[in-house]
């Protein structure tokens, strides 16, 4: 199974502000988006992230999986992650 890695040169603040050193681009993440990016940074797997959400948020597995994939697709769109 492929693993998702955040690219290097990325700074993420606790409040969800994301800064890309190399290009100067900035992004904002909402609370759940920040959680996911933080966990990806900690090299958590997709399964671990989904488990964390179903245990801590009012959300079912299908919904969080769909939303996780959508966020990852956006991160890829902005070239902020790589898949290995």
């Amino acid at each position: 199974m492929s693993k998702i890695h955040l690219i290097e040169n990325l700074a993420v603040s606790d409040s969800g502000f994301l800064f890309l050193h190399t290009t100067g681009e900035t992004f904002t993440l909402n609370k759940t988006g920040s959680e996911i990016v933080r966990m990806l940074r900690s090299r958590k797997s997709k399964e671990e992230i989904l488990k964390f959400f179903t245990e801590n948020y009012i959300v079912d597995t299908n919904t969080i999986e769909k939303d996780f994939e959508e966020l990852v697709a956006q991160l890829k769109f902005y070239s902020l992650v790589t898949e290995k």
Partner: protein
Amino acid sequence: MKKKLRYERPTITKQYSGLMNKFGSSSLSRPTVDIDGVSIKSLCEGYGSPLFVISEKKIRQNQKNAFRIFKNRYPKVQFAWSYKTNYLDAVCSVFHQEGSWAEVVSDFEYDKARKLGVKGEHIIFNGPAKSEAGLLNAMKNKSKIHIDHFDELFLISELAETNNIRAEVAIRINMDVGIYPIWDRFGFNFENGESWQAINRIIQNKNLKLVGLHTHIGTYVMSAEAYRIAAYNLAGLCKRIKNEFNVSLEYLDLGGGFASHNTLIGQYLPAEQLVPSVEQYADAITNGIFDVSFKSEDLPTLILETGRALIDDAGFLITSVITNKRLTSGKRAVIIDAGVNILFTSFWYKHNIQLCQNSGVHTEDTAIYGPLCMNIDCITESINLPSINRGDKLLIKYVGAYNMTQWMQFISMRPNVVMIMENGKVELIRKAENLDYLLEQELLPKKLKLIPV
């Protein structure tokens, strides 16, 4: 057991440097949770989603306010409720209770007004396509028939003579008041003398009584000055009739067309900053009439057929989120359960859409689509929305005008309509349609009935 947190879809938004939005940040962060004190959640639980909601209180406020504004400026004012704007019985009845006459443009609207108990003489019969039977009926009831074209004038004349009736008529007049396109497909033209020719024919006809003059310069008219010109032209014509034929007309009907609080698609500034107030329209119209000096006994009644401006902000549409999607362009899309078949005004307006529950503060440019399997089913191409989940509610405001008359059963049925009464009670005023309702009008030839397979 550990308490779980409210979930919000994860989002990431790219920031672009540049000028700040001059209108400031979105007001969407504060949700609208009730209408006239009735919770949106309870309305959906009781009547489903989507759901049209009409506020009785708001209609009465609007009508009283508009009447007061005109009455303060002009001694003789009469409103006539424009049926085509919203002809649900409950809505029309509120306007009639507030003293409005009925302004109808078809035989069925005429019959609807009569069924509601409106007196014949308090019905204004407009429109270019009145039937022979409808005209005769209106004549017998002493309704005010506004003649649209010469063929109609000849028909009315013939019917009146045959049935030995003196019909009360007015003519609709179109004119150039600086609003384009000119609505010259309706009525007789002012500038080329066509209207004067029609007036001459009516006055010389013993079976016809000319009681008024009517114009309707357009719809969503954002220039009060245009109304002043129209009022001045009609009043001038009225005085000329008095001078040349010694006939005093009962009324001048300035029609409708006042803009509402909705912002048009393609309009840069919001409606609040562009649309004239009722006071400005009233100043323009009454000044236009007073510019033509009338003797006090000859001053005609001013009739107004205002529709949109009186009902739009009394109507709401509650809708539910079906799903969130990401388009191939990267843009976010939300699909809701209300489509353009019930929200026809989506083709004209950038609707005011409110959240009905707490959501995050991070917003994203979003397209909102309806549930129809048709590409045209787009409620708005662009709105800044925070993350919302399936089942969340959105409230579309200012939908009282034209939607509940121009809506159609297409792919999905028309939903319930409720009215929140002044005392806070919720009344169902139109039931949601179902398959039985749809099939009621259909007939299947015997030959085509399926053999069970």
